[in-house]
């Protein structure tokens, strides 16, 4: 098998790596600035299954050789590993507790949020960012979010999450300014959940 043949099996990345990442980053920035709102990417990318467009775009926008990535079982496939290695060059870890980015497609099998990196007291930014792909961003139990970036409150309905996930996240909030930052993805849409957001569920 030649290198060329192997590469042709790898799914493509952004059509225009520079401008597509810029465009995707602005969407991601809005997600983090305005938690709970659904933002939709304007440009498409054909990532490896089961990555949706938004999960693939987040990877291509934020990951590189400096980011240690953990993949949940459902996304730890050869196709995805090859794609991440080729396009992002990210080192992978099997230990979610040390990951800088964690990518999850089956939110039911996510380890307890309490086990991820929440940063150091003097360096709270050295914490995990979770990319959690869900079946729907609009068809789930109603939750009420408030905090920075939210005027009054907003009521997202993210599907496919366990009650335990919300309970665990509630506990990480007591560590502030340490904490976890999450992006929920579905199709080509993203909802941001930074550590500052208070969630009633």
């Amino acid at each position, binding site marked *: 098998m030649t290198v060329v043949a192997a*590469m*042709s099996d*790898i*799914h*493509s*990345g952004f*059509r*225009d*790596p*520079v*401008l597509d*990442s*810029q*465009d995707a*980053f*602005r*969407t*991601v*920035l*809005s997600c*983090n*600035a*305005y938690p*709970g*709102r*659904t*933002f*939709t*990417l*304007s440009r498409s990318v*054909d990532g490896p299954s089961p990555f949706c467009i938004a999960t693939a775009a987040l990877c291509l*926008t*934020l*990951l*590189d050789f*400096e*980011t240690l990535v953990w993949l949940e079982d459902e996304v730890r496939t050869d196709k995805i590993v090859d794609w991440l290695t080729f396009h992002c060059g990210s080192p992978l870890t099997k230990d979610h507790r040390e990951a800088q980015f964690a990518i999850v497609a089956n939110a039911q099998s996510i380890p307890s949020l309490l086990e991820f990196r929440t940063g150091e*007291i*003097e360096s*709270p*930014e050295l*914490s995990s*960012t979770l990319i959690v792909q869900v079946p729907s*961003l609009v068809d789930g139990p109603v939750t009420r979010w408030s905090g*920075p*970036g*939210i*005027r*009054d*409150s*907003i*009521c*997202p309905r993210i599907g496919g999450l366990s009650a335990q996930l919300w309970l665990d996240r509630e506990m990480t909030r007591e560590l*502030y*300014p340490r904490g976890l*930052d999450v992006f929920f993805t579905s199709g080509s*849409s993203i909802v941001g959940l*930074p*550590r*500052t957001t208070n969630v009633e569920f």
Partner: protein
Amino acid sequence: MIQVMSSNTETSKGYNFAYLDEQTKRMIRRALLKALSIPGYQVPFGAREMPLPCGWGTGGIQVTASVIGPADRLKVIDQGADDTTNAISIRRFFKKVAQIVTTEKVDEATVIQTRHRVPETALIEGQILVYQVPQPEPLRGIAPRQIESRKLHAYAEYGAMQVTLYEDVARFGYIARIYEYPVMVNGRHLMSPSPIPKFDNPKMQNNPAIQLFGSGTEKRIYAVPPYTSVRSLDFDDHPFEVQKWKQSCAFCGSGTSYLDEVITDDRGGRMFVCSDTDYCAKRRGAQPGTSEVAGSPAGATAGSSS
């Protein structure tokens, strides 16, 4: 399925779109996200050398270069004006390295890079205000070493800052600080608003826009998300107050904007005019209103606000 990187983003001049290489942009973008997640906290980043002299806002320029794209309209202000050397140079830089459309109107701008002022015109959702920060540490002078100030921020030990301000009250009967007046962000992190006049501090609070801060020399990025509490430090018996003028703007008559005193002749003649030239021109009707910026961030499709 591999596709060749399109050539239109690599200029023939040998630098990448918006000057910074993609690796640097990603590093800054990750820092910006963490900065928004921890409002007012200074995130260290690996600042790059920029082709502009020190003190020209290289931190702000790197932040702008990491967020800006072809769909943006960039406004650059220095002390409220678009036509100073510093502002013109930065605008020219982004025109050259990213072919960015520039504007002097707040209403038309999607990204505004600023030194020393917050525009008088209210910002809207989706707009990004990038502050150039010479010195990001509000505790400098109190904690001489960086390692100490990091500890003070970590444990929110800000008593010494309050004491310093209160020494003013004891000496002058009021808090003498006019610029770079420290603020508490989201009730947790003490933050330097950069050398803006304290007049502008209240505009930072609950602003619908995204406020990003970059210091190139100190290699720090920090942020204030929209709709976030930004409280200027004060005391029960000496509440925070902004500057007021007896005069109104000699050009537009505004009695609520930040005024600069201008000497009009060599016989001591003087007048007061708006520091924010775009705001002043708009009030004089010199600019027909032509806002095309939508009232919500690009791409927002859902979200039930209640």
